[in-house]
């Protein structure tokens, strides 16, 4: 009775039932993602590599040729298959970590630095998204926040003339601020009106894209004197300085990413603000009852998350791209979501996931160049990894792992349903699985 009444009173947006339902499912999926174990992650990578290998085989002309006479000479098929996969994956590895075939030692270690270069914006933006996930908010607006961050950083970078340290600092702060404002719009709207952050941030992505396209047509903005929709390059004083000298692109952004990782860990695990963030993420009702200002915390989550995404965009521009164009963000914003999911929304996990994705991207280039394997395979790998992490029971089934709840593999879905119902019914009973 009482709950029924509560719902009537507290739900002014009754027609949004379906939306709410979908949203709670999304939340469930995210929670599921962030709670499955490291083993599952590792195994998911393994399965993804296998799926990738199958796709490589299916599209490789050499392998296709051997299938024509498979029954006459099956050995040929298997040998070719093995060689193709070995070549593709070793190229992927050499392109991402260490190239043992390179002519000079510099060249040999260059891949890992490229991986880190790619990882910088992914880590920074991934951390921004992860803060949202931990606080129960699905920030899909990484893309828009990155665009705003890059835009602000770029403009400060070429439009002002400042001493070396100050210029870089201002550009970075400007970038973070740009992202924070973009995230903050969604945050304040959610806090004040209850607007769904998923929808608002998606819409803001489009607005950011077209805002940038418009800005690139304004002469006061691009300051190039040409009609090309590309801005002037940022001054040297505003660029993130290289760490390893000429021949390497690795820049100080990686230090920024490491610092941001430590900061986000401190924020979430040690600060009172992070306690509020996690509390509203886990159970906003209890947080409110405990006196936490939920709207304020909600707004701050998206402001800080947006700021980190903006910083990611700024680091990408000031460290790698130097010139602002319409495609500055690429698919960074969406990859960042994947990175945060893969990293289970934990700071260190997000860092490692960022490095992994940076490596896949760097290695994919070499793989395509040397073996003709399409770089799209990398996208398949990324997608399969996330898909599998989202469905731990599937991974457990593939590897015959026991269910962590201690129950045997249930052949029927009904059993699972029973269990859930029973947990609800048995709520006050002492929980048996104290040690999981």
């Amino acid at each position, binding site marked *: *009775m009482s709950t029924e009444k509560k719902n009537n009173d507290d739900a002014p947006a009754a027609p949004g039932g379906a939306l709410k339902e979908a949203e709670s499912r999304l939340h469930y999926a995210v929670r599921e993602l962030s709670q499955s174990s490291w083993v599952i992650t590792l195994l998911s990578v393994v399965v993804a590599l296998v799926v990738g290998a199958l796709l490589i085989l299916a599209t490789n002309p050499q392998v296709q040729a051997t299938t024509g006479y498979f029954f006459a000479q099956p050995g040929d098929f298997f040998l070719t298959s093995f060689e193709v996969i070995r070549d593709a994956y070793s190229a992927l590895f050499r392109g991402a970590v260490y190239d043992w075939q390179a002519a000079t030692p510099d060249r040999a270690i260059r891949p890992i630095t490229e991986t880190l270069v790619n990882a910088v914006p992914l880590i920074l933006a991934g951390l921004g998204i992860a803060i949202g996930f931990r606080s129960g908010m699905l920030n899909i607006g990484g893309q828009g926040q990155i665009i705003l961050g890059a835009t602000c950083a770029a403009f400060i970078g070429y439009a002002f003339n400042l001493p070396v340290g100050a210029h870089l600092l201002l550009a970075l702060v400007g970038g973070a601020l740009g992202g924070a404002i973009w995230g903050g719009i969604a945050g304040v709207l959610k806090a004040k009106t209850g607007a769904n952050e998923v929808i608002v941030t998606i819409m803001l992505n489009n607005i950011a894209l077209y805002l940038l396209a418009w800005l690139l047509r304004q002469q006061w903005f691009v300051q190039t004197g040409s009609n090309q929709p590309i801005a002037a390059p940022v001054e040297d004083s505003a660029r993130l300085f290289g760490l390893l000298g000429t021949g390497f692109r690795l820049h100080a952004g990686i230090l920024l990413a490491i610092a941001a990782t430590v900061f986000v860990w401190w924020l979430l695990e040690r600060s*009172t603000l992070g*306690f509020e963030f*996690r509390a509203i993420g886990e159970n906003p*009702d209890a947080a409110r009852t405990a006196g936490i200002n939920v709207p304020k915390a909600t707004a701050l989550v998206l402001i800080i998350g947006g700021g980190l995404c903006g910083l990611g965009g700024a680091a990408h521009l000031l460290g790698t791209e130097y010139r602002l164009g319409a495609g500055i963000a690429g698919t960074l914003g969406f990859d960042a979501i994947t990175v945060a999911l893969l990293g289970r929304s934990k700071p260190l996990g997000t860092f490692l996931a960022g490095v992994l994705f940076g490596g896949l991207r760097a290695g994919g280039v070499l793989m395509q160049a040397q073996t003709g394997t399409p770089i799209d395979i990398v996208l398949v790998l990324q997608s399969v990894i996330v898909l599998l992490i989202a469905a731990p029971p599937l991974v457990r089934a593939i590897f015959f792992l026991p269910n962590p709840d201690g129950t045997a593999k249930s052949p029927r879905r009904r059993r699972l349903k029973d269990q859930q*119902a029973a947990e609800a*019914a*048995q709520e006050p009973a002492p929980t048996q699985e104290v040690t999981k």
Partner: protein
Amino acid sequence: MKLQLKGVTKRFGTFTANDRIDLTVQPGEIHALLGENGAGKSTLMNTIYGLYSPEEGEILLDDKLVTFNGPGDAVEAGIGMVHQHFMLIPVFSVTESVMLGYEPTRKAGIIDFAEARRRVQEISARFGFDVDPDAMIEDLPVGAQQRVEIIKALSRDAKVLILDEPTAVLTPQETDELITIMRQLRESGTSIVFITHKLREVRAIADKITVIRRGKIVGQALPESTETELASLMVGREVNLTTQKEPAEPGDIGFSVKDLTVLSGAGKVVLDNVNLDIARGEILCVAGVDGNGQTELAEAIVGLRSAVAGTITLDGTNLRRMNVKERLNSGIGFVPEDRSTDGVIPGFTVTENFVLDQYDQQPYSNGVAMKPSVMREAAVQQISRFDVRLGTVDDPISTLSGGNQQKVVLAREMSRDIRFFLASQPTRGLDVGSIEFVHRTIIEERDKGTPCLIVSTELDEVSNLADRIAVMYRGVVVGVVPGDTDRDVLGLMMAGVPVEEAYAQAKDHHTILGEADEEAQT
């Protein structure tokens, strides 16, 4: 119809909810299934009703083996169930509710409303239910809604009727009507399985009592057994049903609410000019049927709901313009009604839950950074003082039982410097041992001189704790009466009868349970 269970076992993972249950319910018998929360009563009934399929054992109806693949099969076989939370649609009429899923039809599948209506009237008249077939469910009082559920079951020719905690939501007078109905059904040959954890009712109503503890049947008893015997059978050790307490020594008024009016989100008045004064060292209990404004009262006091008028005064300070945090910091200790949604954050550790409303206060933080070691130390210390059973304080609180979670909440609220204690349903869903502990703790807090306001819908709890009782009905305080007021009087007040009239009426007409109480006393 005779219902027989043989060795029914139901497991969930490694947890055995029902362990080789044997049970026989004779035709025309009221059989009470008595057990604590979480003992496995509801699981057993859901198994009989076809919602769960048992791992082992057999169910026999009139000595014939049956298997159910769902509630549909069970209904077909003549089993009806009235759930604790009614399965009714508020905007349906009584007739519509009763026929839902079993609509009588005429040619071409057109629903025969007249036939359905006639059936409702027929059953209603046969048992003297006094239910208007055209009334809307949402307009009916809870007791009448329950009767609709019973009619629903009977209209599907139920020969065995399962009632799951049927009295939880009723006033004593409504309970009385229910008892009458149950007796009539028994006369007509219907077997009734009646699930409860309330000892008084069992003794007054049941023909036979089966006690279940931790999923096992621990004994049969006859209604002649005393409450203490039944309680120790149910809990497995000697228990004190009433908590010992000294008479209150009320000081001056510590906390008061004046003319408090609160509107719901939809603009309905849910609290109407509520006035309450609570002295230091006194427990005031707010009694009433669930949903009569008690929840809103507690929420308004803590600041989770804003009041449109009135004052809330703690030690001379008006709290009304303060937010939740300011109110808690000015000395309110608050135990919310729904532990799992409002009281704790399940994924947080015990330590984190322990500091949930003080995380940004000294000594747990300097305002910016938290001090995990200080938090942990305080949690460990208080947890042992409140006798919380757990692995370590670093485990998620969701690994604790309900009773232990509630103790963590109490430890949190009572370990800081409070000047007013407010608890809503502090023992809902707890086992008897935890209930004893919670009651003792609240009385200790009173004896320290703290004014205490306890909201409870359980009359047992109210009469156990209260120094004075305020009864609420539809957002209004009907009256404030002494703590030892007769339950029949309280019951009438819970239905909105003013104090004097309630006393007069209760004198003339005792409820069945009230009479049983008197007999037991003499």
